[in-house]
């Protein structure tokens, strides 16, 4: 078996820094989110019926152009890459913005982009046209989309079998309508979506577009660990759908979505981790016990130093994954596994330390620390746990499991 190493020895290093564009984007986001997404407001929303802040999402889409970052300019998007997508995700994670960015601008957009590419292949014309049309509507922010997969789905999973094609109704064939039946539990970012992209088992498997208003489509909100990214259970009972990709192309589109999802989520985790560290450091300077700032106690200092080192490492992994994805690098699969595992671990550790080092106040409902903890833990499971991503390295890095 070939040694996984040699290839990387000669490859030029990818840029792991933040570009000026990315820094400007981050700055603009921070300004807007500081105003519209204060911790108290985020906490208050968790007890309101609308868990997602749709108005904020529209503002981010329209004013900053977040919705169309990945979409080419000819389809009305910003023509940016996963690098900018990830840089923005860090800021959204730092502010815990309750918007469907990961699901719509990340997973669904990447899925649709890959589906649209099949237009260049024979027979792929119609599906690709639907995908391209969706991308235009995503780019201008008029439509929000989600891929209907359960939260723990991850890249390279087998194609989901939760939904199947059901019997056609009269006139369906002529209108290009398919019917779907099935149920997908715990779907992230599907609640505020106008359009769902549903993978369905069949011969061949396919990827289908279902309007949120379609008859037979039901979304039931789930009481979620992550109160700022509410899941829902999606059921389809003969809901009408249009096919946007089939067979290998459907699988590739879904995988592209999940890869992008894992990388964007990793960046979001990174932003969250850094914010938890910053909050804890600030509290350590402010809170006094034993007539000293608690941040002057060496055991606290050393733990925060370790956490900072962990985040510093995770940042490199996140940047590398975004850069790989942006340049379609052959090392992308390794990079995704490294980024999602490192950033998830960093975020969970940071959020747990944040609660612990705030002491009693960090355990209360009124302090936002728990919102970060819940987001961190839930995100570490979403699109693959650290353990699942590291397991993928066995094959990718030629470290085979015991026979």
């Amino acid at each position, binding site marked *: 078996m070939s040694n996984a190493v040699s290839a990387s020895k000669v490859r030029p290093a990818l840029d792991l820094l933040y570009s000026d564009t990315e820094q400007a984007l981050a700055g603009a986001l921070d300004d807007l989110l500081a105003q519209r997404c204060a911790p108290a407001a985020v906490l208050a929303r968790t007890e309101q019926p609308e868990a997602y802040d749709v108005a904020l999402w529209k503002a981010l889409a329209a004013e900053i152009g977040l919705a169309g970052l990945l979409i080419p300019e000819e389809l009305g998007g910003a023509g940016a890459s996963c690098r900018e997508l990830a840089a923005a995700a860090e800021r959204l994670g730092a502010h815990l913005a309750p918007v469907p960015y990961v699901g719509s601008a990340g997973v669904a957009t990447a899925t649709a982009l890959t589906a649209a590419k099949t237009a260049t292949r024979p027979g792929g014309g119609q599906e690709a046209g639907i995908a391209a049309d969706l991308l235009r509507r995503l780019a201008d922010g008029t439509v929000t989309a989600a891929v209907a997969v359960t939260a723990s789905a991850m890249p390279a999973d087998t194609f989901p079998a939760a939904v199947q094609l059901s019997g056609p109704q009269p006139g369906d064939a002529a209108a290009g309508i398919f019917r779907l039946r099935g149920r997908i539990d715990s779907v992230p970012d599907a609640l505020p979506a106008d359009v769902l992209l549903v993978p369905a088992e069949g011969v061949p498997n396919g990827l289908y577009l279902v309007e949120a208003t379609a008859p037979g489509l039901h979304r039931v909100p789930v009481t*979620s660990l992550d*109160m700022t990214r509410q899941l829902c259970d999606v059921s389809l009972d003969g809901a009408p759908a249009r096919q946007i990709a089939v067979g290998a192309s459907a699988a590739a589109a879904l995988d592209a979505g999940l890869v992008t999802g894992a990388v964007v989520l990793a960046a979001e985790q990174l932003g969250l981790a850094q914010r938890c560290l910053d909050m804890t450091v600030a509290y350590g300077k402010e809170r006094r016990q*034993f007539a000293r700032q608690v941040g002057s106690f060496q055991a606290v200092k050393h733990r925060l130093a370790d956490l900072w080192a962990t985040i510093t490492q995770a940042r490199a992994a996140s940047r590398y994954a975004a850069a790989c994805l942006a340049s379609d690098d052959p090392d992308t699969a390794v990079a995704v596994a490294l980024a999602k595992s490192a950033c998830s671990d960093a975020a969970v550790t940071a959020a747990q330390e944040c*609660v612990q080092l705030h002491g*009693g106040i960090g*355990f209360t*409902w009124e302090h936002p620390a728990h919102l970060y903890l819940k987001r961190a*833990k839930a995100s570490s499971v979403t699109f693959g746990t650290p*353990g699942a991503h590291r397991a993928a390295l066995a094959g990718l890095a030629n470290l085979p*499991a015991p026979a």
Partner: protein
Amino acid sequence: MLDEENAPAKVLAQETELRERVLAFLADHPPAQTPRDDFLAARFDAGLGYVHYPVGHGGLGLPRNAQPALEEELAKAGAPDIDVRLNVIGLGMAAPTIIACASEEQKSRWLRPLWTGAEVWCQLFSEPGAGSDLASLATRAVRDGDDWVVTGQKVWTSLAHHAKRGLLLARTDPDVPKHAGLTYFALDMHAPGVEVRPLRQLTGEAEFNEVFLSQVRVPDADRIGAVGDGWKVANATLMNERVAIGSSRAVAREEGAAGFAAAAWRQHPERRTQDLHQRLLKLWAQAEVSRLAAERLRQQLAAGQPGPEGSASKLIFALLNQELSGWEVDFAGTDGLRYDDWTMRRDASSDYARGPVFRYLRSRGNSIEGGTSEILRNIIAERVLRLPAEPRADKDIPWKDLPR
């Protein structure tokens, strides 16, 4: 507990006498014919409440380990028993403090209704500004005739909304160093000026309370210990908290957090991965070793060799609860992202069967409540390993001059 008291022959004689005394009591108060409250009151008055309580105050001054014989006889007779869970702080912390530090008159007033459950107690120590550094607390008690007038805010008070009495630590002299200016009281929770508000925690429920004290009048007769001796009395309370943890009953394998994890593993073969398996084996082994360490500590206490190992138990208990429940969430996969209910609840205290997410969240408190893990490590380092204390600037300065 003196060694002499535990000499085997003497213990046996004691136990025989005790069993006879219980049987005589049961003959006079047949459980089937005696109302529960009357039975419990009579049992207390007969010295058969907790036998290690003093004579005349519900006990016989016997060693703690004489109690099981008594419980056995009562159970055999189908006698009603007190509900320990209803008044954990009263029985676990207030009673030992009262026995150790209160006057005879106070013992007579407080111990009987405490033991029978008629009066629930709570503990008013922590404040928003005084957590780990308890001795820096700011609640003021000012003398006014035969009363003290108390103003301040307390937090993390379990059972405050059910309690008749609160163990209150307040500052009576701000002009002396922080440990010296404290006095200890038994506060009437129904007195005017006492306001109890639920304190909601990250699980959604409110297991604890905040207690606001506005010009509450406390009779000097309800002071425990001398004026300025509050820190000493409070330490008696806290020490008993630790003994209570250490001397509790034997625990079976997988009885705690490891049981939830192992059960999940057995129920869901389809969720198993090598990563989760290796983590589970490690945690299961640690949990089982921790159970053996608790059992060893129990044996030490029973043998009259109390050791400092209780601090290790609490430290590792918190860590394991957190790690195991974190594992459970990971193992549950998509199910681990779902919770049952975030709405604010009262009196839903620590129902660990609520599922992995609840356990994961609630266990974050295990390393904070009852002494943070950081404070425990300080205690181990300084009291067990006798490592030198850090330089401290707050020992000799009047409380009012401390930086805040």
